């Protein structure tokens, strides 16, 4: 990295996925990053260690991932857009304080560059086996927003989107990439940072005496003051009342947990993005996300040449799961083939939504290698 002029407008570059995430974060307004080295995510930390201070931001290498997650929550509460990045083992360690961020409704972004698991697993090889961990990784009832890019360009765009959604909904957002997306290089055109749409958290419009840090209102998103702005609120991971004080009253408990659910589920249409291809007349759909969507896209084009009416469903948002989108297609689709680099995780969600209306097939690879277009194509031809 000799010349880093992140502010130059409209520029075509050969970029690595991890670097695109880091650049996207800076353009989205992230000014605080706390992290701990872990393959294959470390390039994000390295890029931000070098470039955050150039824009007045701060990078800190913490003693572990528990501390990294804690530090970004602290910085966000003090009013600075914050992010961390990690991979499977580190993501496991972050679950404790990630749960805190859901409970305390603290905007922040966590990038999980997946590698093979369980445990130390395959540090340098690809996997999509954290899919369900992003949904249910921490204890308790909660509703995450998880975005899954499948190209370097999408790494950039979806990092910005992740930051924006976290600010808008006062909640952590997880960007789920993987070793191949993180490490591969693709040509992409960086937009003029001034033209990027930025969303900032809503600030309170009431004086401190009236302020409720966890106000319950019809849209379920509470305006958020920062530490040092005169509001002197309390934040706790204990179940709390709208002021942020611990409660054990059944109504206040239920209200809080309902709010956490409704905040996400009543706005899910705003969060969900699906990139489909050739789906209009399809009777078969391949559903794939992240790296596997690349092979699936090529495979459906190959199958179309063989006159198979197959299309691609590529959810960019995997949680909340795009169930309304999928439900609308169930009468048309006789079969959905779910391609994943794991032993079958998101396929369970597809089966739940399908309720037997469409036949579900799975194609899974979990040997640390990418699935190939030919493999997906062969499976399409086998099940069609």
């Amino acid at each position, binding site marked *: 990295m000799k010349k880093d002029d992140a502010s130059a407008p409209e520029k075509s570059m050969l970029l690595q996925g991890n670097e695109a995430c880091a650049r996207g974060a800076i353009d989205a307004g992230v000014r605080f990053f706390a992290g701990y080295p872990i393959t294959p995510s470390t390039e994000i930390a390295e890029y931000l260690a070098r470039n955050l201070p150039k*824009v007045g931001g701060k990078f800190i290498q913490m003693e572990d991932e528990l501390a990294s997650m804690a530090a970004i929550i602290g910085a966000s509460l003090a009013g600075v857009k914050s992010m961390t990045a990690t991979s499977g083992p580190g993501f496991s360690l972050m679950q404790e304080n990630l749960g805190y961020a859901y409970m305390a409704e603290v905007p922040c972004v966590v990038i999980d560059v997946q590698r093979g698991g369980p445990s130390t697993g395959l540090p340098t090889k690809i996997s999509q086996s954290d899919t369900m961990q992003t949904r249910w990784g921490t204890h308790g009832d909660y509703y995450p927003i998880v975005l899954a890019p499948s190209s370097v360009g999408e790494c950039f765009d979806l990092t910005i989107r992740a930051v924006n959604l976290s600010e808008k909904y006062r909640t952590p957002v997880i960007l789920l990439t993987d070793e191949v997306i993180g490490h591969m290089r693709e040509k992409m055109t960086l937009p003029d940072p001034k033209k990027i749409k930025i969303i900032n958290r809503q600030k309170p419009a009431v004086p401190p005496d009236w302020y409720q840090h966890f106000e319950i209102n019809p849209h379920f998103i509470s305006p958020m003051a920062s530490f040092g702005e005169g509001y002197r609120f309390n934040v706790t991971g204990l179940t709390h009342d709208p002021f942020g004080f611990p409660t054990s009253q059944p109504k206040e408990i239920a209200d809080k947990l309902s709010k956490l659910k409704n905040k996400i589920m009543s706005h899910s249409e705003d969060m969900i993005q699906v990139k489909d291809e050739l789906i209009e007349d399809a009777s078969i759909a391949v559903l794939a996300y992240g790296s596997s969507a690349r092979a699936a896209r090529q495979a459906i084009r190959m199958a179309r040449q063989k006159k198979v009416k197959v299309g691609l469903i590529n959810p960019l948002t995997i949680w909340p799961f795009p169930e309304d989108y999928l439900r609308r297609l169930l009468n048309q689709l006789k079969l959905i083939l779910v391609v994943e680099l794991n032993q079958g995780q998101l396929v369970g969600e597809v089966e739940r939504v399908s309720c037997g209306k469409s036949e579900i097939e799975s194609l899974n690879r979990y040997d640390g290698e990418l699935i190939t277009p030919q493999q997906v194509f062969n499976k399409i031809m086998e099940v069609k």
Partner: protein
Amino acid sequence: MELISEVTHKYLRTKKKFPNVWCAGCGIGIVTGAIIRAIDKLELDRNEIVMVSGIGCSSRMPVYVDFNTLHTTHGRALPFATGVKLAKPNMKVIVITGDGDALAIGGNHFIHACRRNIDITTILINNRTYGMTGGQFSPATPFMKFGTTAPYGNRERDFEISMLAKAAGAPFVARGTTYHVVQLQKLIEAAIVKKGFSLVEVISQCHTLYGRLNKEGGAVEMMVWQKEHTMPIEAAKNLPPEKLKDKILTGILWNTELSEYCEEYDKIIAEVRQDTKGE
């Protein structure tokens, strides 16, 4: 002159959050009072104070006081506080923690906060036990003392907390007790004023669990024990070793000057910043 209780009440969230969870006779309320009086004496703006804590009896303190308050997860107060401090370096960040919170589950964060020398004042209330969960032994429970999980006597040895903090790099280490409240307030004032990571260990009493399990009496007896078994470091200097046997030293135990982390980081920004150049 204002009554002490009037000073204290100015800083309590009296309308919303009382009564508190602490047992009558607990030392944590005494520490809360000392912190409040120190802040009042220093005439700090309460809007500029962030009090951060972990989990445990002592970590409930932020809920009751009228500052910016952050009650976090078990052992993690220091990394949360690190994020707050880096984001807003002008704010006074005070961490309230206990012996289990800071030294067991948060031990790693504790030594690294000392090493990093970030400007955070840490008040470690040491009651030698896990109070909130019912009296289990902690990393500060002495050898052969009893806890509900050490029914045959604790066979582990306790941390020497001040030596640990000093060895880990903290530039300011002090120790006080809940018996010596005037000294405690002064130590907290000095710790808050200190630029860099400062630790005040407060020896406190948990008579309902630790005191009962170890037959050390009620709150009064335990505080008398503090009186009899501690000595200011200044007084100890001129005494022969045999007179210091079984005495715990109090006061400022270590105080040195080291460059502070946030200031170091600001130097990096001043060196490499691009976005404001030419303005």
